[in-house]
């Protein structure tokens, strides 16, 4: 089978990590500034995983089940560096949620996310004000560049 499996198997692992830009052996990438995120997903598993991933990079993360809850949170004054919104939510869908969030003047980076990538969904989400649209799972490859962008 070859080399022993090492639990620290970061993707694209390179030598040192000057700015913590990549995950080198034994050290996890961490955001430089105080970043906050909101996960909007009606699935408990996805909420838990996305939240854990973001938190592991030092991003203060909250999660809600519905678009309505997200809108309410932001209407009450909460601000987030990053908002990740699932396409198909239980009531108001992802794009509608993004639209309402943008209408309130939120400057957050909005990432639309979905189980099955669909071009029409992508168009809808981007037109609603999302910055990006990806298929699950949320991975370090997606998150780390976003965090770097937000940090600078």
């Amino acid at each position, binding site marked *: *089978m070859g080399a*022993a*499996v*090492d*639990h*620290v*198997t*970061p*993707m694209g692992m390179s030598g040192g990590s000057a700015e913590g830009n990549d995950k080198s*052996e*034994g*050290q*996890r990438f961490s955001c430089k500034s105080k970043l906050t995120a909101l996960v909007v*997903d*009606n*699935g*408990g*598993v*996805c909420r*838990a*995983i*996305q939240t*854990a*991933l973001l938190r*592991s990079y030092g991003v203060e993360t909250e999660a809600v089940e519905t678009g309505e809850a997200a809108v309410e949170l932001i209407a009450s004054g909460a601000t987030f560096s990053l908002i990740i919104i*699932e*396409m*198909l939510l239980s009531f108001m869908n992802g794009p509608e949620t993004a639209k309402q969030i943008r209408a309130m003047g939120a400057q957050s980076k909005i990432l639309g996310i*979905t*189980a*099955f990538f669909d071009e029409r969904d992508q168009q809808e989400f981007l037109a609603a004000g999302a910055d990006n649209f990806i*298929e*699950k*799972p*949320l*991975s*370090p490859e997606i998150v780390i560049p976003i965090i770097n962008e937000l940090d600078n």
Partner: protein
Amino acid sequence: MDRNHLKRQVDFMKRSFLDQGYLDEQFIQLEELQDDDNPNFVEEIVTLFFNDSARLLQNIEQALVSGPIDFAKLDNYMHQFKGSSSSIGAKRVKDECTRFKEYCTAGNAEGCFRTFVQVKQEHATLRTKLETYFQLARQAGPPGTSRGQVR
């Protein structure tokens, strides 16, 4: 039993799951999230997944057998099911979901029925494999002792 031997067995089992396509890299990413603050994160997430997904599968089954098929509803259930499956790295399950979705989109009831049998099968197989895996992992002792993670 020798702890190191058990750890090697755990690693070997995981490696074989990856090689045979039951799991993909996403599962490894979940393990990376385990640490002293969250020592059982993966098992907890996987347990949550199997509880949630059992319910979703029941809903899909109901939707398939009761009266004229509501393909939009099926699509919705499968969307959530695929989303969580892919998020825990359940590769074979995820692939069957994709097949199901194609039949669903085409309004092909028979195709949905057939593929759903596969979905349930892969789901059940993975459940058994991971139950064994976590049992062994618990015996082998706390994970992360070989990670040398520095915070």
